[in-house]
């Protein structure tokens, strides 16, 4: 039930939810016009961490841009690697061996769980709970150790190559992954759901807060858990299958309420689905090489190419324009959080400031991915 209010302009004041703020997960600034506790108008201001990725793409070769992809969304860096590798492989017509595809899916899904764990820790930190961060990071460190064995770095992975992956996974990685999944499945019902999800304080803070309708998602282009929380059954791994995803059976959690609780539950169930995918991929892992043959200097045919990949935050698109020489002529990165955040202004109007922060936490923002 909302209360219509007429407002004279001198009763409001402008507050900066500025670049340096614990709840903005980075340097997002929101200019809030406030009427006491209520937000009259919210206007996100971007660009405080704009790092010229697209200009660098035009001045470097295709392979030189791979490290950049990991520095945009560093929580799900492998999906960004995967998106960039996919669009260039399509453009240059490079074949990827079967085993490399499976390794890509395993590492991307592990990275997705790590990203959701960090979102979960940061979201509850925004709402005031500090202890969930400790055991969520404990689980996340297990994943980071596994991925560090294979990729060599902890956060900004540069693991994929055009035509395959950098190096092969060994039995210790496979055994470690199975142990990790058994451990997380054991902890999930007690630590994550009983202690936090059914906690009355959390339910009071995020239930019926920040309603996003399916039509709003479509008009603003919101994808990923934000859209799946409002009843839109859209997951690129299912709707626009790429790599070897069609060979695994996993279902896409969709909730219809559209409030912050729905988005929360979508991500919690997605962690479970990612574990199912990893197990099936480990069971069906074929042998063979991990690196297909790819020309040293890539000169893809001129033309327009687009690839979409499902990251933890939504659909990541690479719009690539090639004119035949060794540098990409133009690369536009369609980042999911850029569109997910654009509906913040419309939804946060009339909200209490504390609820607006809970709503922003449920959008799962990574600011360098917005500013690129």
């Amino acid at each position, binding site marked *: 039930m*909302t*209360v219509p209010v007429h407002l004279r302009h001198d009763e409001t*004041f402008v507050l900066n939810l500025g670049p*340096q703020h614990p709840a903005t997960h980075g340097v997002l600034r929101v*200019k809030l016009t406030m*009427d006491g506790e209520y937000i009259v108008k919210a206007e996100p201001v971007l660009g405080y961490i704009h790092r010229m990725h697209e200009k660098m793409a035009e001045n470097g070769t295709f392979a030189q841009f791979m490290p950049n992809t990991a520095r945009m969304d560093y929580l799900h860096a492998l999906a960004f690697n995967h998106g960039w590798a996919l669009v260039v492989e399509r453009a240059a017509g490079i074949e990827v061996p079967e085993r490399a595809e499976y390794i890509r899916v395993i590492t991307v899904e592990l990275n997705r769980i790590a990203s959701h764990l960090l979102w979960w820790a940061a979201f509850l930190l925004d709402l005031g709970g500090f202890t969930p961060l400790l055991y969520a990071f404990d689980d996340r460190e297990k994943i980071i150790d596994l991925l560090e064995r294979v990729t060599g770095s902890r956060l900004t992975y540069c693991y994929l190559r055009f035509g395959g992956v950098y190096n092969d996974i060994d039995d210790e990685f496979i055994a470690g992954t199975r142990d990790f999944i058994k451990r997380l499945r054991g902890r999930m019902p007690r630590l994550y759901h009983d202690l936090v999800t059914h906690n009355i304080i959390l339910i009071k803070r995020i239930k019926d807060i920040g309603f996003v309708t399916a039509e709003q998602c479509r008009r603003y282009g919101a994808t990923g858990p934000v859209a799946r929380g409002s009843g839109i059954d859209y997951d690129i791994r299912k709707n626009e299958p790429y790599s070897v995803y069609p060979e695994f059976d996993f279902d896409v959690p969709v909730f219809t309420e559209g409030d912050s609780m729905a988005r929360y539950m979508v991500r919690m169930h997605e962690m479970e689905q990612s574990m199912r995918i990893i197990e099936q991929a480990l069971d069906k892992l074929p042998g063979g090489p991990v690196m297909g043959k790819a020309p040293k200097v890539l000169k893809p045919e001129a033309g327009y190419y687009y690839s979409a990949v499902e990251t933890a935050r939504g659909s990541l698109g690479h719009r690539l324009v090639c004119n035949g020489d060794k540098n990409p002529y133009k690369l536009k990165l369609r980042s999911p959080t850029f569109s997910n955040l654009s509906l913040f202004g419309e939804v946060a109007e*009339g909200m209490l400031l504390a609820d607006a922060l809970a709503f922003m936490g449920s959008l799962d923002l990574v600011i360098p991915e917005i500013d690129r």
Partner: protein
Amino acid sequence: MDQVVLTNIIYVTIFLIGALLFGFGPIIIVKLLSPSSHTRQTAGRTDQLIECGMEPIGSAWIRFGIIYYLYALIFLAFDVDVLFLFPVAVAYNSPELGLRDFYEILLFVAILSLAIVYAWRKGVFTWEKKTYLHQ
């Protein structure tokens, strides 16, 4: 001014001086020991209000909603309420405090909590979502 009153006065003054020292002591110590009164500047913005690194827009001296005033009133009512309950708490376990006194205290607290009931019915505690009709 017999001996007992004098010692009581001395106790109270010592207590008072201790409180003052405890209050102003750290301020003086910090003034002496902290590196310096001014801090190193790069943009000359030391005394600017903290607003996440940004220049605050407009001033915050505006008319606030009445609802915060009502919260202050309710707090005041119960603050005074506690003030009267202190002597009761001190004399609570003495034998002559009978059941009748207990009911008196209960009545006293009940009358004061009527303020809460009044505020509740006036809708002070409900924070509904508002939609703003922009002229």
